């Protein structure tokens, strides 16, 4: 089954650490943009694609009015076969009101992803967020009241000024909201963002402290009944993000909007990050990045992000050298970085922390 991604490249304010494609919107652009999305979805050439997830990402998709979101969802439902779909909306805690939430629900949106980031006011301020933790708490409560049963919150690790103890405070605050899903991302300072300067860099946790923070987060969330199913993602009661799982399981997805990525019919492509062009062009152009990507390489690279890990049967089926992989992984296992069983291997939280190196080595081994 395919996943549908809709990008909304607008924010009320650009966060200083963000390098996703987004901008503060002009007056009438939101309506023009909605129409362009609807047009693109409706004119999508291969009709009848079966999809089970629809994901509004951004930017801040909740900047769109409920009616605009509704028209996009209707377009998707008319174009694709959306069965029992998980429909996610990324939302800024400030922008969701009870009325909006109810409207979302009636449009079919059944999952909310809130960018809470921290429960410590000074940290939120440094991150350039417009909300306070109280606002976030209110948003979650309202969402639950409205009937949302699948709420996710983002939290950031290693942000300027954050300490192990403020992190604990944030996590405990988040846990008190009784939500089903948490994404915990270590801050990565991206080139060209406002955070890309020595002053910020020096006020952030170093690698050692970041690692401690990450392990602390994993420990606390697991103790609270969450399953760590991916490097940065935790779910309760089986509420994994079905949409994001598609990225990691090598399944297909179609992206709409500037800078949205797609993987369909074995081709990886994206739409260039140019909102004006997206609005004026009849249909979005596709820039092909890769045709028939190396399945073995992608499998190892993506599956090792998941706590499910890589299965040896699948590895063999893709032509991978299982013996070499296991042999290389033994060294990592000794260092506590992965765990190997009869039919699969997966990384431990310590392993996730250094997964780049492990993945590249295991790909080498698999290809040997």
């Amino acid at each position, binding site marked *: 089954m395919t996943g549908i991604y809709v990008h909304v490249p607008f924010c009320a304010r650009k966060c200083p650490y963000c390098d996703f494609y987004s901008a503060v919107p002009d007056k009438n652009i939101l309506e023009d943009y909605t129409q362009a999305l609807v047009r693109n979805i409706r004119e999508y050439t291969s009709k009848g694609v079966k999809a089970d997830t629809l994901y509004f990402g951004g930017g801040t998709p909740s900047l769109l009015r409920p009616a605009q979101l509704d028209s996009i969802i209707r377009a998707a439902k008319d174009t694709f076969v959306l069965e029992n779909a998980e429909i996610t909306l990324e939302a800024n805690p400030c922008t969701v009101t009870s009325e909006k939430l109810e409207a979302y629900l009636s449009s079919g949106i059944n999952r909310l992803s809130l960018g809470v980031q921290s429960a410590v006011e000074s940290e939120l301020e440094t991150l350039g967020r417009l909300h306070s933790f109280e606002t976030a708490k209110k948003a979650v409560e309202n969402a639950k009241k409205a009937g949302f049963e699948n709420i996710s919150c983002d939290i950031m690790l290693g942000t300027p000024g954050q300490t192990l103890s403020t992190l604990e405070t944030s996590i405990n605050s988040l846990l008190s909201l009784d939500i089903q899903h948490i994404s915990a991302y270590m801050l*990565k300072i991206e080139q060209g963002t406002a955070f890309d300067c020595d002053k910020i860099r020096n006020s952030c946790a170093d690698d050692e402290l970041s690692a401690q923070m990450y392990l602390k987060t994993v420990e606390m969330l697991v103790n609270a009944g969450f399953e760590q199913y991916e*490097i940065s993602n935790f779910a309760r009661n089986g509420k994994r993000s079905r949409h994001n799982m598609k990225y990691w399981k090598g399944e297909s997805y179609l992206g709409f909007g500037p800078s949205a990525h797609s993987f369909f019919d074995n081709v990886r492509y994206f739409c260039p990050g140019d909102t004006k062009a997206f609005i004026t062009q009849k249909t979005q152009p596709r820039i092909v990045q890769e045709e028939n990507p190396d399945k073995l390489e992608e499998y190892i690279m993506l599956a090792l992000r998941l706590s499910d890990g890589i299965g040896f049967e699948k590895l063999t089926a893709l032509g991978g050298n299982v013996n070499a992989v296991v042999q290389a992984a033994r060294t990592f296992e000794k260092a506590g970085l992965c765990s190997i069983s009869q039919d699969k291997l997966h990384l431990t939280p310590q392993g996730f922390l250094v997964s*780049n190196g492990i993945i590249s080595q295991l790909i080498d081994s698999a290809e040997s």
Partner: protein
Amino acid sequence: MDSSNIRNFCIIAHIDHGKSTLADRILELTETVELREMEDQLLDNMDIERERGITIKARAVRLKYHAENGEDYVFNLIDTPGHVDFNYEVSRSLVACEGAILIVDASQGIEAQTLANTYLAIENDLEVVPVINKIDLPSADPERACNEVENIIGIPAMDAPRISAKMGTNIKEVLERVITDIPAPKGDDEAPLKALIFDSYYDQYKGVIIYCRVKEGHIKAGDTIRLMATGAEFQTVEIGYMGAKELVPVGELHAGEVGYIAASIKDIGDTRVGDTVTNAAMPCDEALPGYKKVNPMVYCGIYPADGAKYGDLRDALEKLLLNDASLSFEPETSVALGFGFRCGFLGLLHMEIIQERLEREYNLDLITTAPSVTYKVTLTSGETVTIYNPTNYPDPGLIASAQEPVVNAHIYTPSEFVGNIMELCQDRRGTFKDMKYIDTNRVDLHYVLPLNEIVYDFFDALKSKTRGYASFDYEMKGYEPSKLVKLDVLLNGEPVDALSFIVHEEKAYARGRRLTEKLKENIPRQLFEVPVQAAIGGKIIARETIKALRKDVLAKCYGGDITRKKKLLEKQKEGKKRMRQLGSVAVPQEAFMSVLKLDD
């Protein structure tokens, strides 16, 4: 031409005293090279020579000079390397001449190489013509330089030409001196052929080109020659003399002349510098004296960074060997580095040059092991073995005694640095021999030093301890008994053969500690903790720990942008290419070089 109007000479000087610049001026003045074709350091045509300002290979050029006495002369200028590594080649080039122009820098005075090369010239009965150069410099003191030449070398110098090769001042005076002070060559043109090989190189079309000085007799194209050291015979195809930019064929070469012989010779090993060429049909009784086979002094392992390039490395070495008979190499295998070659060099400069040429001219990425000298070890069984590779150093229990090569070293320095230098030499296990005052504030320090102690970074240390004022020269003295041990390095508990080296017992601990520190600095954090240990015969004497990498992860999934992650993996792969996988540890190439720089 009458041999009385021939002058064969060379120029000797300390590095940077202006040898190549004077050669350039002489070429211009004699109109050997047209001005529009003139370029700096014309005779040093290898890139490395130009960049480093040194002469590596000997060259010769024939010049025509119309003298002030109205007569025409033929000059053969033989440009020689100045560095100690090439001492033997220098000495053979000198034998091809009757005289030498000795350049002394008017501001620096006499330096170590000036003296070493002058003594070589005097030993070979050359007439030495001193010339004081760089008189245009504000710090020039020609008077003092002349005094030094008279006092230290003991040749008259008060009327020596005072020139500026850079500005072209008084160059003609030098040429006139060549005529008046340097004798014309002697030699019986009718005697059996006796020609000295002072250099050779491989030409892709003509085979080996022999540079020679005809001492007795004559030679013409078609003659069958015999090379006396090897006994090999060849029919000459072409003979001639060396123009500034190309070879100029002539019908015959006569006694007293300098020229070249091409005889379709394929192997440069047949044409050894110092050997004598004679006519196979009418051979001379005995060869010219002084020929010897030069043996490498310094060895190191050279490995391709990319194991697949082993064949390319072999081809490149073979090509270099065509032009450099003093290079030696044979295949060796290292557990750590795979297939490579153990290469022998005349000295450190020679080693550096070969490495650089392999990398630049043949586009190879190399890993080289620490340079090592050859040790002589007597085993408890009574057998004596020569050790070229530290890896093969016998187990301590099997060694009855060991010997290492030592050199006579002379250091010329302003007296204020004597203390620093003595400290350095002491530290390098030197034995003080004597100290002579060259003038009121400069001395010649004579030490006997183990070669092993100067192959690493002695010259750099000397420069830094004397702010660059000291100069240094050495010659082999022989072997002396020594207490040596082999130091092994273990990474993650596994010995790395390519990092082993031999060191004096007393310095082993300090070196082991420093080495493990250096390796820790040079090896990046791995996915797990890696102990770095130094050991002597199984006993650990130093340990450092490379901590485990803590964080290397792409935390976000970037909205399905998988290629972003792939690019990162590509980058890691690139980084890995510069690494050697030693068991479970990835080691960058620089780590292998860190063994060389233990004293900074």
